């Protein structure tokens, strides 16, 4: 018995061991999703595309344009995780605002190189057709069209930074392909813009009109085409006049010949016109100022007719999702946490018209209270920036104990006589690039021998009165305004004060809105001499803004550029605009920007406003090489076909 059982066990063991080889080891890895799972049904595709959408080069609230001046690498680029320093805004290096940048620190960019994301799109385009049996109707085509849009968006993010870069349309594989095969050379800048145009045409033809939250449709493709082709047109037109010589320019990797401009402008106009009738400007309220404020807070409203594409922040789905715009652009006095550091300049505000704060003889006008200075201004301006004395609607983030007034005062003059400009300047300023000579603060005596009183502490007093306002202007710190203004665009007045803190704002970012399309069309129109059509567009924009009616004589390049700078302020357009117009090196030629400084004149019990340099008086200088960013040297080391480097680096 004992023997038998031993034998029995041995045989069983032997047989088992023998037959294990018949079991093929083909269990799929359980920690990876297979193509079947992703491409086999719509929910897999949604998950796959969510990642592609998340990485799109959308310059939203969180976008960090360069690692410099205290912005860390982890806070730079698109969608940095857990970043709250939104005041490192591209507008704060270019004179829309002044902010924490020490100067024009964003010129070299941050080495954006999204070929991983482009590969994800290419993989999608190559793999999805294998699963077409799983989808009904032309759903596969619709999805492929969406992928073409996404690919175009990534190339747009590259082209506006580097000019010509390699166009990669297929999935690359290593080590199956050799290094030589994988070292794709640069395409010319013209080829890249044409590729973007073609991709968007394909996207438009294949995609549906249906609106799905957070996803693109055929109109989104048109909106991007309208923008991208305008960029290409102006780069061809102005980049051929103002450029940096170098190998990359000689070989066409940067720069487009001027005769191509017309074609690009025509494509832009064509795309913009296709959106006509599908969208319109947001005109929900008869109160133009309130209407313009609400436009930016109404991004989640499906019935907002102006919105073409938004990026949402959903704290329910992802606790790290909310941004900090409200807390980092409002004075601490109105919030539950956070501090601001970027402030609109007077130079920006005066794009809406010169502020009449001085009399004809040059003496400052006297005001009974602060708020008079902001009265009677264009509704759009008042909805874009807060003036001294403005009252925060709904009592300052909803706190009843808070008076909600932007109490912005820079100091006290015991008495004041004479001209404003003499008090602020030794030699008068002409423009930001020719900024005159500021009078040193210790020589500021109100033209009559009594020193101006300044303070760094909001509780400091002179003759029983607080010297500065509770929302600025301090002498030494930048957590209160440096210019006399605060940003109002996108500030959500409906949030209770206590809830306004870092990582609590979920106002969606409007990436494409119809107003931009109208401005694109008007600009391309004017560049190609179609003034009547431009007038149609700018009339709509200005009527909604509460501005005066434009005339045909107004239809100049300067006018449309100014209109664009006003309408799209703080939306991360301005930096790219002044670059593609090739004016940045003259507009930001050792430029200094100004603020509007409110002072109290004690002897008269009145307020005066003086236009003078912002309190940090920083210098902003644009070097011509910044018209293109340098191709990351690490990438050139990996792929020598990316040489030559862009000129000037």
């Amino acid at each position, binding site marked *: 018995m004992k023997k038998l059982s031993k034998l029995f066990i041995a045989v069983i063991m032997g047989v088992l061991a023998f037959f294990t080889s018949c079991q093929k080891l083909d269990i799929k890895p359980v920690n990876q999703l297979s193509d079947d799972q992703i491409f086999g049904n719509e929910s897999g595709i949604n998950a796959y595309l969510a990642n592609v959408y998340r990485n799109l080069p959308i310059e939203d609230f969180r976008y960090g344009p360069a690692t410099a001046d205290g912005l860390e690498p982890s806070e730079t680029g698109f969608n940095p995780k857990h970043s709250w320093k939104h005041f490192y805004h591209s507008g704060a290096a270019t004179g829309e605002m002044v902010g924490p940048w020490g100067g024009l620190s964003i010129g070299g960019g941050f080495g954006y190189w999204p070929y991983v994301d482009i590969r994800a799109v290419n993989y999608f385009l190559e793999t999805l057709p294998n699963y077409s049996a799983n989808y009904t109707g032309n759903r596969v085509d619709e999805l492929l069209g969406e992928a073409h849009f996404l690919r175009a968006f990534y190339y747009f993010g590259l082209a506006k930074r580097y000019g010509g870069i390699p166009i990669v349309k297929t999935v690359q594989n290593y080590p199956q392909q050799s290094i030589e095969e994988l070292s794709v050379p640069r395409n010319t800048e013209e080829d890249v813009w044409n590729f973007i145009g073609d991709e968007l045409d394909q996207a438009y033809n294949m995609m549906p009109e249906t609106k799905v939250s957070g996803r693109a449709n055929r109109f989104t493709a048109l909106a991007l085409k309208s923008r991208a082709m305008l960029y290409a047109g102006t780069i061809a037109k102005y980049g051929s006049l103002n450029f*940096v*010589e170098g190998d990359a320019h000689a070989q066409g990797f940067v720069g487009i010949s001027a005769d191509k401009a017309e074609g690009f402008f025509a494509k832009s106009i064509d795309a913009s016109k296709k959106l006509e009738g599908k969208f319109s400007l947001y005109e929900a309220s008869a109160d133009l100022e309130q209407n313009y404020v609400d436009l930016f807070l109404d991004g989640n409203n499906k019935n907002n007719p102006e919105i073409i594409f938004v990026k949402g922040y959903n704290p329910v789905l992802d606790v790290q999702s909310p941004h900090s715009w409200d807390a980092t652009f409002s004075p601490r006095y109105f919030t539950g946490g956070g501090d601001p550091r970027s402030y609109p300049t007077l130079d920006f505000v005066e794009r809406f018209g010169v502020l009449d704060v001085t009399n004809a003889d040059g003496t400052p006008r006297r005001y009974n209270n602060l708020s008079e200075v902001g009265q009677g201004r264009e509704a759009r301006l008042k909805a874009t920036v807060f003036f001294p004395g403005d009252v925060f609607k709904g009592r300052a983030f909803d706190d009843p104990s808070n008076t909600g007034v932007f109490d912005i005062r820079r100091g006290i003059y015991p008495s004041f006589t004479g001209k404003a400009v003499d008090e602020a300047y*030794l*030699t008068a300023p*002409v423009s930001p*690039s*020719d900024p*005159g*000579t500021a009078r*040193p603060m210790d020589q500021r005596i109100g033209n009559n021998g009594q020193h101006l009183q300044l303070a760094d502490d909001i509780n400091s007093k002179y003759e029983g009165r607080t010297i500065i306002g509770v929302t600025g202007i301090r002498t030494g710190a930048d957590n209160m305004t440096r210019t006399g203004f605060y940003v109002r665009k996108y500030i959500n007045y409906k949030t209770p004060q206590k809830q306004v803190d870092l990582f609590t704002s979920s106002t969606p970012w409007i990436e494409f809105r119809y107003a931009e399309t109208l401005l694109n069309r008007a600009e391309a129109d004017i560049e190609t001499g179609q003034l009547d059509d431009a007038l149609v567009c700018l009339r709509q924009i200005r009527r909604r803004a509460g501005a005066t009616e434009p005339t045909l004589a107004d239809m100049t390049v300067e006018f449309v550029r100014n209109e664009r700078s006003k309408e799209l302020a703080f939306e991360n357009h301005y930096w790219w605009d002044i670059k593609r117009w090739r004016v940045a*090196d*003259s507009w930001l*030629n*050792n430029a200094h920007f100004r603020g509007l400084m409110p002072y109290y004149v004690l002897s008269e019990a009145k307020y005066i406003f003086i236009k003078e340099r912002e309190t940090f008086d920083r210098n902003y200088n644009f*070097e*011509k*090489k910044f018209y293109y960013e340098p191709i990351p*040297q690490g990438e*050139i*080391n990996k792929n*020598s076909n*990316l*040489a030559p*480097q862009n*000129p*000037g680096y």
Partner: protein
Amino acid sequence: MKRYSRAVIWGLFIMAAVSSCIKKDNFDGPNASLEGTVMDETNKIAVQTCTGNFSIRLEQIDWSDVPTPQNIPIKIDGTYKNSKLFAGHYRISLFGGAFWPTAPQELDIRQGTRLDFQVTPYLYINDFTAELIDSTTLKLKFSLAAPIEGIPNIIDIQPYVNTTTIVGPGASISQYSESRRLTPKSPATVWEWSTMTPAEKSPEIIIPNMLRGRTFYVRVGARLDDTQKNSNLSPVIEIKVP
């Protein structure tokens, strides 16, 4: 005692076993050097420059087809030196500077390699004088001359005043320097050399309110609208304010 020696033997054994993990590379250290002077071609003297104005760019082309460029800044006396370079074949060019462009050169850099550059500035600043016209007011006179016609436009002309001999763009006192800048009459934003009047080519700059009892170093520069927007600079003059 025995136990101790055994430990030593074991230790030696481990060291011998692990020694094979150490790779010794056979590249030389950075023992080559390059130095030289950037000379004005006509006058055969070192060019007038300042901190950060321009540099020498090195690209080691025997190492890689697309080498990472490496810059050597030009010192204020027009010389440059880097004594910690890797020996090899380099492409050397001038990077920046308000000169007529020069072609890059290729060169083997070894120990003690010298390379002087001959350049022609866009502008000479001639007859530069600085004098106190009263106890605290400084008057600067000079004239601009272009050795070769067809220079880039001039953006501005400005004095640079500092309390050390290191003076120039980026190293000056703004009340005496930046704020005394001369710019073209609006609406023009640049001067075109061919249309500048003789008076504009020989300007005078007055700097008031110089601090008493200090020594200042003064020079002037004209900034040109080329790629780098660099300046041609005058020699430095020492001014003692009584």
